[in-house]
């Protein structure tokens, strides 16, 4: 009897171990291994240890490093300032405006890379419609200012939404307490609202900083002669096949990201546990504050100006799909659309397939992994949790180059296959998926699980019949996020696709690099419209399912 019980217990342990391995192995193979490969390659370029590449970079290209960091910081600071202004305006403005601004911000999140750049060149470029035709000016939009402007424009929506989310979580009673003690709106804003939302603002800044550092496309298209580290990494791989150099550059880009990440973690830990009784009542947020008229009109002007720019941007792109600007006139043409039909349709369909598979795959895997991590708290699960968060702070090129290095030969020769692209997109979005699931899991009463076990439900049955249905909203969120991200990403996968099996964002990047803006407009529109449709369909589904 005794031995029977023992063996039963042991078998449970083995099942656990098996599941743990099954879930941890992919994390090790598809996240840790590529990272290690990049770092190793940068220090062992020819198979033995050498700091030559780093020395060259720091000695001869210090300017490059300086420019990269400076422009990324400038972009981040400007983005956060604008995002903060918009978030404040949203908090203070009437409910009707609030809704429309939020919808607009969310729509502009669906932005394929270079959309801003494309619109910018069409409107403000050397031969751009507004600069050249309306204003009659000649100026050079290319250079560092152009890059920063583009990065700011394409990151404001994300940063603003993150900060708005933070504001909504503030305890309105803390703000009331400030007012009750005599604090006028501005005072309450500066000495209570901003310190309280600092973690959110820092987080937003840190995400934007990493995105800017990793962005190589914008400098190639808009930078002119102004180059950055990410650009050099891209050119090193694509132009010269110099993987050690690309690896070293990727590692250098990673350092500021890592610093930002650890700073953020430290910051969070410091302020953690202070949310004493931060219960949320309704979603009043910081709405109770009244804003002075000049302040609110300034913020309002900034917000509406940004939304106007976004409208202009998307409008210009849609417009340019069927109109050409030649000799001062707009000419209707179907040339660009026809050109797509002939050559690039396959890439578009392939992108849709990749996005769909990656989204389903990572949402499932992320849910399982997160469920396992939540139910087995311990040192090892903490490590796995940390490792699975890494892709979030990895610059795109880093992750792409890592895949080239890791999966070029046996045991896993994946180079040139569709699988490597899909896997890359999957694991890059894994952090969002696990975070969404664990947020969903914390909302599930732990007793639900116990109740199911108590009623005699087995382990797998419990997972598939009780836990997964409860996680449907998180699953859908993860799906939408990964689908959108894969449809619009270029950073990592540009290194992984083959000329025979391109994806639509890479096609877009190539036509823009070659200066074919009409084609670019059509491709961008296709990405925007298809992603928007998927988003709408699935968002509706989420909303309907949740009543």
């Amino acid at each position, binding site marked *: 009897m005794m031995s029977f019980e023992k063996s039963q217990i042991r078998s449970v342990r083995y099942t656990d171990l098996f599941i743990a391995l099954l879930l941890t192995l992919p994390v090790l193979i598809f996240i840790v291994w590529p990272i290690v490969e990049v770092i190793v390659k940068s220090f062992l370029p020819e198979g033995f240890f050498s700091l030559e590449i780093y020395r060259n970079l720091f000695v001869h290209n210090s300017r490059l490093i300086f420019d990269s960091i400076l422009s990324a910081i400038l972009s981040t600071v400007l983005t956060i300032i604008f995002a903060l202004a918009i978030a404040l305006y949203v908090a203070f403005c009437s409910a009707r405006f609030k809704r429309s601004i939020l919808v607009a911000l969310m729509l502009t999140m669906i932005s394929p890379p270079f959309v801003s750049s494309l619109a910018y060149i069409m409107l403000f470029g050397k031969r751009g419609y507004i600069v050249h035709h309306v204003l009659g000016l000649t100026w050079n939009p290319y250079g560092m200012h152009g890059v920063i402007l583009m990065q700011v424009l394409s990151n404001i929506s994300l940063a603003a939404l993150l900060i708005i989310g933070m504001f909504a979580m503030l*305890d309105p*009673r*803390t703000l*009331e*307490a*400030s*007012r*009750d*003690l*005599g*604090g*006028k709106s501005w*005072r309450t804003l500066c*000495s*209570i609202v901003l*310190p*309280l939302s600092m973690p959110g603002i820092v987080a937003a800044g840190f995400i934007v900083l990493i995105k800017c550092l990793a962005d190589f496309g914008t400098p190639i298209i808009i930078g002119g002669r102004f180059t950055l580290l990410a650009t050099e990494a891209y050119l090193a791989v694509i132009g010269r096949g110099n993987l050690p150099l690309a690896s070293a550059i990727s590692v250098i880009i990673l350092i500021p990201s890592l610093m930002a990440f650890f700073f953020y973690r430290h910051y969070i830990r410091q*302020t953690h*546990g*202070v*949310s*004493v*009784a931060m*219960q949320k009542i309704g979603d009043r947020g910081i709405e*109770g504050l*009244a804003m002075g008229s000049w302040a609110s009109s300034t913020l309002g002007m900034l917000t509406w100006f940004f939304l106007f720019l976004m409208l202009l941007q998307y409008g210009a792109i849609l417009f340019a799909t069927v109109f050409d600007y030649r000799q001062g006139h707009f000419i209707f043409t179907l040339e660009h659309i026809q050109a797509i039909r002939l050559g690039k349709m396959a890439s578009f369909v392939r992108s849709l397939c990749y996005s769909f598979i990656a989204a389903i795959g990572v949402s499932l895997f992320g849910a399982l992994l997160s469920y396992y991590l939540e139910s087995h708290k311990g040192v090892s699960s903490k490590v796995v949790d940390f490792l699975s968060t890494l892709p979030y702070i990895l610059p795109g090129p880093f992750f792409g180059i890592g895949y080239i290095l890791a999966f070029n030969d046996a045991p896993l020769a994946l180079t040139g296959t569709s699988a490597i692209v899909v896997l890359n997109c999957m694991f890059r979005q894994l952090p969002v998926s696990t975070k969404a699931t664990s947020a969903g899991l914390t909302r599930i009463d732990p007793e639900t699980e116990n109740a199911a076990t108590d009623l005699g439900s087995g382990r797998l049955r419990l997972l598939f019949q009780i836990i997964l249905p409860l996680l449907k909203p998180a699953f859908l969120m993860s799906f939408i996020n990964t689908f959108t991200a894969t449809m619009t990403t270029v950073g990592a996968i540009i290194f992984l696709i083959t000329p025979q099996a391109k994806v639509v964002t890479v096609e877009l990047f190539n036509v823009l690099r070659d200066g074919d803006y009409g084609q670019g407009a059509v491709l961008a529109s296709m990405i925007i419209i298809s992603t928007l449709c998927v988003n709408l369909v699935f968002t509706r589904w989420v909303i309907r399912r949740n009543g």
Partner: protein
Amino acid sequence: MGAVVLKNIEKLYSDTIACTDINLSINEGEFFTFLGPSGCGKTTILRLIAGFVQPSKGTIHLGNRDITNLEAEKRQVGMVFQNYALFPFMTVAENIAYGLKIQKKSKQERAERVEKYTEMVGLSGFEHRNISELSGGEQQRVALARSLAIEPKVLLLDEPLSNLDARLRDRMRSEIKSLQKKLGITTIFVTHDQTEALTMSDRVAIFEKGRCIQIGPPEEIYAYPANSFVARFVGDTNLFAADIRNGKASLSDNVTINLETPAAGRFVSIRPQDIVFSTAEDNRKNVFPARVESIQFDGISVEYSVKVDDMSFRLVILNTSTFCHEITVGADVHIAIPGKSLKILEN
């Protein structure tokens, strides 16, 4: 004229009435309690006084000043929130000094007041602690000191004791009360706990469904509830619908109680401690045979549930040293209901 006067106050949220027809006059230095179940509008009225919401109708005066349209930050009322709403990134001292900084008090005066009020709430030596290092009770004290430090005209307390455990709640109850006495500050206290209301208040206002039903000192409200809702909500009671005529109240066919003084109404309220055990030989009026259904012992007293035919009565007997516990569940007993213990209520 009172320290806080509310005239014809009404607050609507779209179509639902949060409170209506509120007329209150709170005296200088008074400890005034809003008592009612959740959703009765008491917190809304407190927030109206603090200025966080605007009334749909009516006026609010603070002293002689009409503050109906004054912004919350200019009202000089000190509010203690249910969750304390402390500023988590500031120390205890910084929290307390926050309002003083806004009042542009000098550094020295700020330091003096912080010292005075931390001492007053018993937190001396805690000045440089972070909020996250404090227990719930200590946070409560900081919130109190922070509100008192600005020396407000009125102190508003929004269920400040509801997040504390029972023992601490008892202690804070008497501490707040004695602090209020010492400072002589006009205080409005919102609670759904009748014990807090009865023990702490000079006067209590009872709210139900957005209306103020009765205002008076605790003893008066307990002794003369205005209706059956108040009788049930304040203190425990036996409440029955009754046929009342000719100086007699008929609770059922077999239970008819002779009244001391004739009265009219439709309900009868009898406090559990007014009913006593008796014997069949008792030749007083209003004695009824009964059967003991259940017994609850809580140390200070013993509560019996007995049935006279189909009617349940609850009795509370004080557990004095001479009390003997010979009555058991199922025992046949007699109970006596003194005619003067009956409160006749209209509705």
